[in-house]
């Protein structure tokens, strides 16, 4: 996890409303052939970032998951990024 370079999230009891990027921007579509966009939704280890953090809606997160998995299968995205 990248530490220090981001503001501390608010404590409990005060939650910021997260909006699904794909719902807001209709030009953005989820495409397994486009690793550039998908990269925003995987951690530096290559893991899929949960909805809780990205703020995506259920539907788009589901599509994203499938797209990421397809991209992994054809080596557009890594399965794991190992240390060193």
């Amino acid at each position, binding site marked *: 996890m990248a530490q220090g370079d981001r503001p501390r999230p608010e404590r409990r009891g005060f939650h910021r409303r997260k909006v699904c990027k794909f719902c807001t921007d209709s030009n953005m579509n989820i495409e397994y052939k486009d690793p550039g966009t998908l990269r925003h939704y995987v951690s530096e280890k290559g893991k899929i970032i949960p909805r809780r953090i990205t703020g995506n809606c259920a539907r788009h997160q589901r599509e994203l998951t499938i797209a990421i998995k397809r991209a992994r299968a*054809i080596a557009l995205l890594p399965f794991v990024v190992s240390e060193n």
Partner: protein
Amino acid sequence: MNRYDLIFIIQSDVPKDEIDEIVERYRGIVANLKGTVVKAEKWGVRRLAYKIEKQGRGFYVLLDFVGNTPVIRELERNLKFDDKVLRYQTVKRASQVSMADIEKEMAGAKKEKPEEIKEVVPAPETAAAAEAAAPEEAAPSAEEGSKE
């Protein structure tokens, strides 16, 4: 008739004319089995996210076609035996497509780009570039989503 995307990765050290030949051969298979190739794109040599058969790079080819299951069966059977093909993946994009729509789409595409096979390179080095930037970039950019 369904519409499929077939992506396959050819070894990066294969000469260019041989790549053309391979792509033509697979286009031929689609045509033989009464399928229609909507478009064939060569993405060029890209860095692979992980090594496949000890290779770090590969030449990506996308074949977008309409056809029935025998087409896929035949394509995959051939791809499986092709030593120059590192990996392939077929994805069904739409089922029960009408040929009229496809023809319309192809006519539209032809108007823009007359040549049959386009040499499309959607940022070939993105993988490499993103790779370099990724470790720092990946997490913060995801955070951006949450800030909005």
